[in-house]
């Protein structure tokens, strides 16, 4: 089935600057995002920051990528 995922997700973006910029870019698209410290640094490439979004996560990821913010991975916010 198509359509946007509607649960909470962490978009892992790495640096604090990416996170700040990403948050701002998402807010201009009407997507609310919250900054979080990445919980499990050893799962990815180490310490860093994630953006918690609860709606339109696919659009959020596309927006970030299109605007040059590196998206490392997307994980469920369980």
């Amino acid at each position, binding site marked *: 089935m198509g359509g946007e995922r509607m649960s909470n997700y962490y978009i892992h973006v*790495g*640096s*604090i*600057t*990416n996170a*700040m*910029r990403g948050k701002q870019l998402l807010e201009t698209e009407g997507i609310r995002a919250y*900054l*979080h*410290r990445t919980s499990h*640094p*050893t799962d*990815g*490439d*180490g*310490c*860093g*920051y994630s953006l918690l979004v609860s709606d339109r996560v696919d659009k959020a990821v596309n927006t970030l990528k299109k605007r*040059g913010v*590196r998206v490392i991975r997307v994980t469920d916010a369980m």
Partner: protein
Amino acid sequence: MVYWDNAATTWKKPMTVRQAVCQALSLYSANPGRAGHKMSLEAAEQVYLCRQAVADFFGLPDPSGVVFTLNCTAALNTVIRGVLDKSGRAVTSDLEHNAVMRPLAALSDHANRYDVVEWCADEDALVERFRRAIRPDTRLMICTHASNVFGVALPIRKLGELAHRYGLLLCVDAAQTAGVLPIDMEQDHIDYLCVAPHKGLYAPMGTGILLCRESEKIPPLVRGGTGSQSLSLLQPEELPDRLESGTPNVSGICGVRAGVEFVSKLGRDRIYRHEIELLQYVYDRLKQNPDMRLYTPRPQIGYAAPVLSVNIRDVPSEEVAAALNERHIAVRAGLHCAPAAHRRFGTIEQGTVRLAPSAFSSRGEAEYICKVFSQIAEKSLH
């Protein structure tokens, strides 16, 4: 004190800058980009807001391209060593500060790797000189926007067009012009802009900015902790982290943002005109005195940074500066870390006394300076 040494660093700092620094020491004194607690995130936000303000001020679309450095010298070293580390040559002017010349000279230990163009007042002739100096392996055009000694400005936009036409990167040393002369990185074709915010942006010392349009990814001067990608021993590739290792000067950075806002609110052009008009007054008065030596045409808006170098006959410039200091006038004399410029203008033996007003300087101070110069000149005859 009559402080006319603003080309070294500006004083006074605006109240808003001082307040921003104090506030940062109280409220934003956690390490940004390292933790998830409230103060760390708030400090990070302040740093990001400064990146944005600086990017907007200089016409850089992406605030990630704003890199905070220790000072403008560190920014220049990062670019020079980064672009030319393995190969290639640079072309530069004969007015450069040692912050440009020393790293170029260090790269030229075994073989000369840079070409120097003699400055001239005719913009098109100067651009042609730069064009003729470009060689097949020239990769970087690096030059001052305006001389820190004589104030003469280079036609950066025309040089940027030339550089890009020949596939070169353009790095501009804007130590004397940021916050004073108009700079737009896109329109001026600037790839790397090096800024001393503690000068024309009225920020605290211990701050520097490198703005990158990043057509080429340059390696860092310093590698270390960035708060990101910590599992890897490789420095992160993306900006600003690639070029920013270690704990940043958060209170200084907050001061930078306040300084940018101060200049924007007062009006960059208004500040510039104020300073040039003060120097024009001084120039006109000193020119009437046959004992005074002036080395440049009358400062003109758009063609000069607000800096004027003078001498009293053959009197050593440091003696004149000492005499001015006794009369509570603060200036810098000597070679100003720019022997190249002094050679160009024939003042390498004597140095010069440099006058550099700020937004806070006044006509009354200018009148006093002229009066004291006359008195010193007369006294030195006896």
